[in-house]
């Protein structure tokens, strides 16, 4: 399925598989919901001379979950954008393994830092109850979409940490063997 689920022991892989499947489904449904909602807005406006009351409030909240769960899935698939210039130059050598290790460590440290400030922001909002910041019409608490950012970065960092562990387990020799030289 994916590298993480494939390499983890079955007992540990099961919850990961469930989480990843849920995320995939949510992200697909969220994207479709966005499209259908905007289509409905146009149809209701011109077909029924009406409007979809305060749709932007719930749609944007769901969109945040769609975006950041999608980002977490991207970390799980190692799809986040990077300029892997050194990776191409170094090929699959021992030096490349050390570069990979450095990248994983930096990503973990900065990832934890991001999770930390996301946590502080969400925590300060939760503590403020009942004086929550809400949307104007539907009174959706701002903490709901903001929690998506925290959850997204948490999973991104978690997946990066797991890849760091895999990288360490592989070691330079395993790294070279697992990634045979291919012509770009």
């Amino acid at each position: 399925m994916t590298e993480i689920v494939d390499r983890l022991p079955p007992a540990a892989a099961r919850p990961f598989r469930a989480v990843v499947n849920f995320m995939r489904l949510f992200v697909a449904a969220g994207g479709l919901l966005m499209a259908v909602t905007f289509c409905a807005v146009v149809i209701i406006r011109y077909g029924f001379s009406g409007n979809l009351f305060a749709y932007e409030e719930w749609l944007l909240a769901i969109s945040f979950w769609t975006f950041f769960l999608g980002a977490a899935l991207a970390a799980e698939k190692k799809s986040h954008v990077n300029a892997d210039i050194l990776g191409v130059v170094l090929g699959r050598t021992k030096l490349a393994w050390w570069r990979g290790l450095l990248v994983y460590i930096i990503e973990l440290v900065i990832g934890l830092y991001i999770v930390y400030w996301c946590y502080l922001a969400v925590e300060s909002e939760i503590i403020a109850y009942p004086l929550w910041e809400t949307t104007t019409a539907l009174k959706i608490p701002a903490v709901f979409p903001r929690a998506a950012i925290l959850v997204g970065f948490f999973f991104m960092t978690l997946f990066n940490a797991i890849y760091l562990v895999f990288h360490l387990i592989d070691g330079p020799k395993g790294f070279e063997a697992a990634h045979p030289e291919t012509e770009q």
Partner: protein
Amino acid sequence: MIIFGSILIICGLLLLGVSVYIAFGAVLLFLALTGGHDITGYLPAGYWKMNTLVLLAIPLFMIAGAIMEKGKIAAPLVALAELFIGHIKGGLSAAAVVASGIFGSISGSANATLTCIGGIMMPHLRKANYPEGLSAALIVSASPLGLLIPPSSSHILYAWVAQQSVLKAFLSTVIPGIILILLLIITNQIALRKYKDIKVTDRPRDFVPEFKLQTRQALPALFMPLIILGGIYGGIMTPTEAAGVAVVYSIPIAIYVYRGLTWRSLISTLSDAGITIGVVMTMIFMVLIVSRFLIFEDIPTIARELVFSVSENPVVILLMVNLVMILIGMLMDDISGLLLSTPLLLPIVQSVGVDPIHFAAILGVNLGMANVTPPTAPLLYLGAQVTNTPVSKMLGPTFLFIFCAWLPTLAVTTFVPALSLWLPELLLSR
């Protein structure tokens, strides 16, 4: 100190191979340490900036692009382009460029354009003995037409950041896009002169019936830009609504008309698109926070003073701005580049009399070119996979297209403002 430190961190980490969003996270750490900013303000700052319907157009266009890519919507467009110019030497590769322009007007995405057109055209080109590296490089170089021919996600983003009209920003790159199409075709024709064994397809004996047939097949796909652009320019829909309608329209077209998708594969297409959306939106989130805190530190004024200390000549300043954008584009993706360079560079160019819509075109061409310029060049690497051609074979021809087509297009777009401003003024001056 802050400006140089931030640049150093971003460049260093990107060159090392760290993800773009993490590189911006490191800048935020640096800003917190040096500027004494309250880190609990980071999340709300990004959230409020992103909490707008305008930005939803970007994921929606990405979904539409993904559906069209998997839905084989490009095939009839390619066949139509081939019908007209496939029978002359170099015609097949010219058809690929034209088809990229047409498909760009449907999908608004360079990635979708490259995957669709590259996947279809490359086997045809190989079969007709077209040189592999040159053809793959041409397809890659033409794919950013998806960013230049409206609708374009990056223009929506630019218009939002710069507080400009989306419609005018869309139109600003139409003429540069056409110039680029012509220059790519001419450069390719010249490069093909030394290849003698290229086969050409026969012109159909009954052109009119064949034309009718191909047009009928391509019509549902061609209807898409009509809905999107007609809806937007007719004032019927906002760009975000048009993107939503485009997604809903493309689903039955991909499933029932072109039969490239099934309901089951639609779900995996949507979730794959969701991953790409997640990547882009995370970068947008991080860049928005960074740019906000850079503005707090008055970095745009410092950058402006820095540029003006070198020269006050508008031509020199525009050259410097272009150079900076090329460097930014070489290191990061187009969305991050746009979000970072717009607040920094727009005040500089405006102070030498450049119209913000003209700058939209300059930025659009720069970012399009950056997508194919090594070392980052995401489209070049994607193109290598799509066309199954080694990057080493594509590098030389890619630089040929950059020097002979992209750079001249950038030069005329930068120094002839009428090319970007004439169409918006003509159509939207009411």
